[in-house]
Each structure stands twice: as structure tokens, then as C-alpha cells.
């Protein structure tokens, strides 16, 4: 069943600020196998000119879809998660993410298009600090296989 186009343009806010911790960054860096000390050692990060431990570039995926779940899981939207694969991902960065950041993400279902039998859904996530400073933007393109039928 085709996805409900009424959802294009709908925006969802993360339910609470995401608090970036040194431990979570360390865990993420360990998971991707990256031994860079500035991901796990605050002194090494400071020696490199950063205020605290830095997050790897793909770290925002940890929280960037938290708000969008409300829309994507809405039965009225019609998405069958068992058929969903991650098609494309892009991040643009205004500044690095640091341990101690308190971040908010507003997710917008920005585009839905049919390509053959598949539905392509783009979710844009605008990430800011709780004070409104822009941090990064995530573009998450999901493919629902067979969804356009």
C-alpha cells in the first residue's frame, strides 16, 4: 500500500534533550573500531584544541531519528518496517558534537516518492543545542521495498 502523502512536511520534535556523554561516545568509537584517543580521552581531545571528547561523524544516528519515530510508526502513515532498508544517509555539520552537549532534533518527513515498486522516504533531522545553536543536519533516506504497490 502506498504511503500516506499527507505526512509530507510533518515535523516531530525529540521528546527530551539528548545528553551526549563521554561514555556513550567511547562506546560508539569502540563499536566502530576507531582507536582515535580524542573519542575517549578528554585530555587528548583538549590537547587537540577541543573543549571535550569529540563524537565521530556518524554518531548523530544514535538520536537523529528519535523524534521521527512518532510519525513513521503512525498507523495512518502505512509504513511496513519489515520491508524497510536504509537507502542513503548524509550529515552536514555546523560544528562537532562534544561530550556534555544537550541536543534537540526536529525531524521532518521532507519527501516521499515512488521509484518502481519501492517507496523512498527522506527524513531531515535538524539538530541544535537546547539553546538553539545549529549543530548538524541529518538526511535519512529509507526505502520501503514493494511499498508503492
Amino acid at each position, binding site marked *: 500500500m502506498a504511503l500516506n502523502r499527507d505526512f509530507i512536511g510533518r515535523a516531530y520534535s525529540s521528546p527530551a534533550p539528548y545528553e551526549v556523554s563521554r561514555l*556513550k561516545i567511547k562506546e560508539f568509537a*569502540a*563499536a566502530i*573500531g576507531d582507536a*582515535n584517543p*580524542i573519542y575517549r580521552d578528554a585530555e587528548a581531545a583538549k590537547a587537540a*584544541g577541543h573543549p571535550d571528547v569529540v563524537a*565521530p561523524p*556518524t554518531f548523530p544516528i544514535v538520536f537523529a531519528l528519535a523524534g521521527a519515530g512518532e510519525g513513521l510508526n503512525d498507523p495512518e502513515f502505512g509504513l511496513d518496517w519489515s520491508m524497510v532498508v536504509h537507502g542513503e544517509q548524509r550529515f552536514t*555539520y555546523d560544528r562537532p558534537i562534544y561530550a556534555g552537549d544537550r541536543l534537540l532534533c526536529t525531524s521532518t518527513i521532507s519527501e516521499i516518492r515512488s521509484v518502481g515498486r519501492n517507496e523512498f522516504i527522506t527524513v531531515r533531522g535538524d539538530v541544535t543545542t537546547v539553546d538553539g545553536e545549529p549543530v548538524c543536519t541529518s538526511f535519512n533516506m529509507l526505502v520501503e521495498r514493494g511499498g508503492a504497490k
Partner: protein
Amino acid sequence: MGATIKWDEVEQGQELPAAEYQVHRVNLVMYAGASGDFNPIHWNERLAKSVGLPDVIAHGMYTMAQGGRYVTDWAGDPAAVVDYGVRFSSMVVVPDDDNGATISISGTIEEKLPDKRVIVVLTAKSGDARVLSKARAVVQLA
């Protein structure tokens, strides 16, 4: 803070040193926990095969993270990456053996931009499969 590579010292078309990253099942279990993506196709062989996959496959974001690691290791600072995007074009199949899978990544400086930035285009392969396409990063050099 900032890249250690100087914009003046790189050329359009320059190839960056290739790198290989090994992926084992344990890495996917760790990535599931760290990212919160517990889709069983990334750790449960029985379930992966039941939905028609050849075996457990890596998270696309795990592969993207290896590309990110490649770029930040080259540039010398994660903060130097200002834009990074990929298309997931094929699966990284991770068998339950001592070798796991290998992700081979290479990069080319496609274009030198103003303000000391460059576009790096990545090629990522696992076996013969090209696992990322349209993989490009904009990097702020020194």
C-alpha cells in the same frame, strides 16, 4: 583543532592511501548496542536467512562509519568533516568464522573548493561488491 593536511599540498585527482577494515560478528553486536539498532538481520543468522539474506549483514551505518574513520584518519581531525553522505548500494555479508568480512576503502580528491575545502570521493568494497556508492565527504583542510 583542525586538519593536519594542508589544502595547498593536495591536488585534484590525487589518490589517498587505501585502507582495510575487518568486521567480525562481535563488532555488529557492539554496534547494535552502541547505536540502538537491534534489527536481528545484523546479529541473528537464523532470522537473516529466513528473510532471504545469505547470512548476517553489517548495519549500513557501520559501513558508513568505516568510511568516516577513513576520512578522519586521513584529515587528522574529525572536526574537519563538514559534509558526509553515502548511498548503501550492496550488503556487507559477515560470516561466523575467524575472518569475518573485509571492507576495503580508497579515496580520491575529486575537487578542490574555495575556503581550503576539498571533496573526497570514497570507494568501499567488500569482496567484489561495491558496498557504498555516491560516497563523498567535504573536508576542511588547513
